[in-house]
């Protein structure tokens, strides 16, 4: 079957690839473009491990039809770190031992980034709601919530 050309912005850089019919965005990111940060968990939009930001809003890449991202902006955990170092969320997760097996962590980070980008000073309840769609099977939710609140209090970075 014919592939469809797709051009979009991935973590601030232009990305161009050809996608199979009905391919999901997660497969395109991981297999097509080598960005292994979003994870395949359930494949049915239940676990949140594949969460990425599309035009700043959290989306589940495993149930996103890849060709629908033409011209849009995609952010993954791979794009969080910059020349200044780890993103405050990454630093807070590391400092606060907010990862056990780590499989849910990229999805948690992106769900948290979507929250902090929109609401820099969330309440604990708002943090819990923001990660409600992200399953941690190690059940380490409390350190994750604490880390997101810690990151929210960290000094703002520019850019």
């Amino acid at each position: 079957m014919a592939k469809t050309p797709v051009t979009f912005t991935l973590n601030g850089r232009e990305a161009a690839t050809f996608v199979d019919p009905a391919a999901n965005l997660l497969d395109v990111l991981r297999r097509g473009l080598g960005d292994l940060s979003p994870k395949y968990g359930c494949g049915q939009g239940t676990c949140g491990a594949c969460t990425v930001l599309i035009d700043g809003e959290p989306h589940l890449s495993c149930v996103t039809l890849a060709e629908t991202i033409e011209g849009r902006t995609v952010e993954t955990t791979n794009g969080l770190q910059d020349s200044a170092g780890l993103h405050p969320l990454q630093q807070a997760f590391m400092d606060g031992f907010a990862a056990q097996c780590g499989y849910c962590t990229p999805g948690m980070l992106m769900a948290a980034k979507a929250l902090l980008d929109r609401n820099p000073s969330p309440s604990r309840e708002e943090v819990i709601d923001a990660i409600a769609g992200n399953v941690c099977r190690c059940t380490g939710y409390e350190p994750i919530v604490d880390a997101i609140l810690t990151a929210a209090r960290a000094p703002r970075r520019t850019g």
Partner: protein
Amino acid sequence: MPSVATYATLAEAASAMTPTSRFLAGGTLVMRDVNYGDQGFDRIVRVPDPALKAITPDSGRISIGAGVTMAGILASRDLDFLWPAARAVGGPAIRSMATVGGNLFAPHPYGDLTTALLALDGVVHLSDSGQVPLDQFLVNRAGLVRSVSVIRPAGDAFRFHKVSRVKPKGASVLTIAAWLNRSAGRLSNVRIAYGAFAATPVRVTAVERALEGASLDQAGIAPALQAATDGLAPVDDALASGWYRAEIAPVYLRRVLLGEVR
């Protein structure tokens, strides 16, 4: 893998649908089936028409485009009465994707928003300009949906509550939506709907009849609680047995009617 066909308008897409085509809106249902190798369809049809995201107030009602997402509902002040129902659907990522039109087709136990639309006298507007009451639409769930129009409830006349075992996000054991229209202090033409109770969200007509002319207090709603499951066959699933659903229905119906839960 299925092929993907993109059309400019819903009318074009409707004429191009085949028995083995699936219409893709937000993707949360169709792409899940693609990932799991569903062989029941070989073609995905989509219409990225911004007109399907329109929200249009019209006197006492409001029309919600089939492509409006749960996040779109939460961003609309005109739809504030639906915020509790939209928040009940998934987490933020699902809410960025899942659409009003898609929710009408969501299999049991999903369809929390549809339950709310059912209680608000939902009318489904189809691609061919035809329209059908939502309760009739849910019998066959056929056709491409352009929009759903609902009543804009006044004050606290609309109540919604989702019962789930997992907090803050979990699939529904029972969802109750109630439009408590009142006339001269008495309930009149109320509409009650249950979600996750039967195969699709359903109106509870026995309760509606029992509430006609009643006062909204403990004594007034007693006959309605007696009729809480009349005419319905609650389903068993992995979340709860039909017996359990039938047991909790009058309890939560009372709480919803008396405003003890929101």
